[in-house]
């Protein structure tokens, strides 16, 4: 029904899609997996019309089409449910659903809200969401918003004749297990109305939901797996091109930390509305995980240590020195490095190249009298590009054009090359695929072995448990419980969950 034939896409320096053949049948659910930088997102953008292919053909029911923009693609029945949700929070649910298509409800220049509410109800019924369409979107939970987004895309059904193809980009990343199951059930039922392309980093979910799975690597489709045609590990092997280590979190590499050497000490630190009464110690070589729900104060603790937030009570010492009034600049000077969650906004500077990014936090070290020693910077960058096998054509590559995993490597290299021995990692593996995640785990172990103290806010509980020496559970800005996590005697997610909620 929908088909791509030998589709090619090139960007300066990158051949993003190499002769991709892809098809999807009516009512089919097709999975799309691949490492970061494999070309998944480029392929999706070609499908929903944000990019135009440089070569090849897009066929709908055998006839060739060309989309200049996503709206044209929508008119042919191709809808996209975005990973970063595209709903406008201060509009009502119905206004969001019909955003840009309000005309159908206009009578004599005035919107007939009753008619719109009725139509919105019908759309929400498709996704089995029994909420009031006049509700303000910001009051909905994340899972509900995801469904509203899906309902919005499903309005295409009435607007378009022909079949629908709906892309789901990482729809499960913010959902709980139960919500994921509900979503999957719904998607399966909706196959009577549309075909789905499902993109996710979670292999088990892709295998659970998809009828066929396209496996991408380096801009090519390396395999198409039918349901039940291969085990998860075999697919991962094809994706990564190597075996996935059973010891995923590198537990065998976990070494005891130096209990005598305290790097960071917090004593009854408080910040009204964010954190209260936080006392903890970070030792050299220790991986300390902060665990808690969203908004529990994990990030506030990280940002307080980094000096982006200033505590109003308590004491904070970095390497024995009073650091309560430190700015980030002073923290950096004391060897603190910060890997923020928003990699593209706070992690790297898009528009600056690899060496400029790497030395951004340590320009003093590579300059004399304010004049930079550029050749030294470039040598340093080349060195780290090799050490971390960063995929960049050279140290002059614009960091904005690197894939997520490689951007994260640049951020980590920035701090490691500066010799930071206190690392604050906020969701360092967020949005990375398995290969890139493993690289990050390796780096965390290597840093720990080198005596670096690490405060980590992990993406999942499993990750937190696997990586850490110590886990601190935070709830409502307070420390609930501290766990020691020696290899072989680690707490289970259930143990932690008990204190989180």
């Amino acid at each position, binding site marked *: 029904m929908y088909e791509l034939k030998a589709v090619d896409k090139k960007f300066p320096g990158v051949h993003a899609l190499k002769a991709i053949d892809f098809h999807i049948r009516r009512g089919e659910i097709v999975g799309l997996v691949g490492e970061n930088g494999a070309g998944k997102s480029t392929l999706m953008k070609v499908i929903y019309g944000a990019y135009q292919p440089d070569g090849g053909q897009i066929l709908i029911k055998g006839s060739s089409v060309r989309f200049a923009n996503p709206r044209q693609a929508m008119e042919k029945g191709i809808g996209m449910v975005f990973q970063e949700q595209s709903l406008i929070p201060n509009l009502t649910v119905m206004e969001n659903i019909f955003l840009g298509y309000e005309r159908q409800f206009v009578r004599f220049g005035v919107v007939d809200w009753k008619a719109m509410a009725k139509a919105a109800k019908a759309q929400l019924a498709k996704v089995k969401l029994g909420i009031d369409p006049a509700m303000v979107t910001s009051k909905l939970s994340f899972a509900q918003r995801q469904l509203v987004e899906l309902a919005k895309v499903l309005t295409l059904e009435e607007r378009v004749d022909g079949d629908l193809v709906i892309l789901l980009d990482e729809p499960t990343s913010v959902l709980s297990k139960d919500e994921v199951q509900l979503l999957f059930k719904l998607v399966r039922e909706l196959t009577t109305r549309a075909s789905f392309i499902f993109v996710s980093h979670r292999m088990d979910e892709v295998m659970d939901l998809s009828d066929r799975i396209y496996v991408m690597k380096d801009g090519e489709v390396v395999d198409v797996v039918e349901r039940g045609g291969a085990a998860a590990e075999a697919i991962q092997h094809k994706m990564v091109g190597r075996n996935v280590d059973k010891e995923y979190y590198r537990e065998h590499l976990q070494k005891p930390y130096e209990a005598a050497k305290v790097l960071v000490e917090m004593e009854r630190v408080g910040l009204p509305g964010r954190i209260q009464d936080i006392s903890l110690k970070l030792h050299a070589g220790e991986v300390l995980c902060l665990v808690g729900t969203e908004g529990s104060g994990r990030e506030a603790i990280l940002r307080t240590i980094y000096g982006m937030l200033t505590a109003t009570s308590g004491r904070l010492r970095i390497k024995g020195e009073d650091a309560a009034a430190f700015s*980030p600049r002073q923290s950096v000077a004391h060897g603190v490095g910060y890997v923020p969650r928003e990699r593209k906004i706070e992690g790297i500077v898009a528009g600056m190249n690899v060496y400029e990014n790497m030395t951004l936090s340590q320009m003093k070290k590579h300059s004399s009298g304010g004049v930079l020693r550029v050749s030294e910077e470039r040598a340093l960058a080349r060195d780290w590009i090799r050490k971390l096998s960063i995929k960049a054509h050279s140290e002059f590559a614009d960091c904005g054009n690197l894939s997520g995993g490689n951007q994260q490597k640049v951020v980590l290299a920035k701090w490691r090359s500066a010799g930071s021995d206190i690392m604050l990692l906020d969701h360092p593996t967020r949005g990375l695929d398995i290969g890139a995640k493993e690289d990050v785990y390796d780096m965390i172990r290597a840093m720990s072995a080198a005596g670096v103290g690490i405060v980590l806010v992990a993406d999942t509980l499993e990750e937190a448990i696997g990586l850490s020496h110590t886990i601190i559970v935070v709830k409502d800005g307070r420390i609930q419980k501290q766990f020691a996590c020696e290899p072989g005697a680690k707490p289970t997610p259930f143990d932690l969950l008990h204190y989180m909620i």
Partner: protein
Amino acid sequence: MDIQRLKPHLPWITLVVLVAIVGINDPGFLRPSNLLGIAGDIVPLFIMALGLTFAIYIGGIDLSAQSMANMVTVIASVYLASMGAWVAVLCVMAGFLLGMLSGYVTTRLFVPSFISTLAVGGIAFSIAQWLSGQRALNMDAAQRNETFGWMIGRTWGVPNELLIAAVLVAICLFIERRTTLGRALKAVGAGELAAAASGLNVARYKILAFAISGALAAIAGLLFAVKLSGGAPTIANGFLLPAIVAVLVGGTPLTGGVGGVANTVVGTLIVAVIRASMLYFEIDATRQQIVFGIVLIVAIALTIDRAKLRTVK
């Protein structure tokens, strides 16, 4: 060849095309002495544009540049007699400090730079009116020639203004490409939040950018006062628009982060050619701002980075 790859080269292509068009219509335009003269005349405006480049490079704007230059022409005319050559130091300091003030208001009081610099420009203009008693002032010709005569003569047929401009360009290029300051300004322009998360003192660098802009506007004003042998609170009016045009057509977008000093050199030459060509095509001075207004709109629309500008208000 797609437009994205062509974009960085558009400024100099525009320049060559413009020169060719005017040259074909009037071969006299291409005479070296004529070209040198045109280039020399644009120097005060160029120096102002050079300063503006720093403010725009970090994603801000400096609307006070013209008033700053106005004020400096008055300061230079009033104090030349009593201070001699030291008046130059006074002028540059005044520009630098007022620029710092704009930067301070922008970064510490969180007032957008277009408002803070507009307000500081108002202050500068008012100082100029008060100091001058709202009259045009004249410098003592003999003293001017003795103290600042070197600024406006010719060396081997090249106007000295051009040499001054060349020295300033060299300094600014060095700051931009070789110093920690330049790198920090680029980081602030391209990704301010990431720069802050890397431990840079973003506020300090922003204040410095506005201070440099102010200082260069002051140098522009000083040179202008020396050229005209006097000053007045409105003497440099009509500079601001072409100076902003010069920065933007050179390829430094309002959103900052790319472009820079070298681009402004090309941009100013484009402005110079446009200005000269208006003389050839007999568009009179009162209508020139219409042209620059239109060019400004086109330049902004072409250069602005819409990925950074989510919404426009």
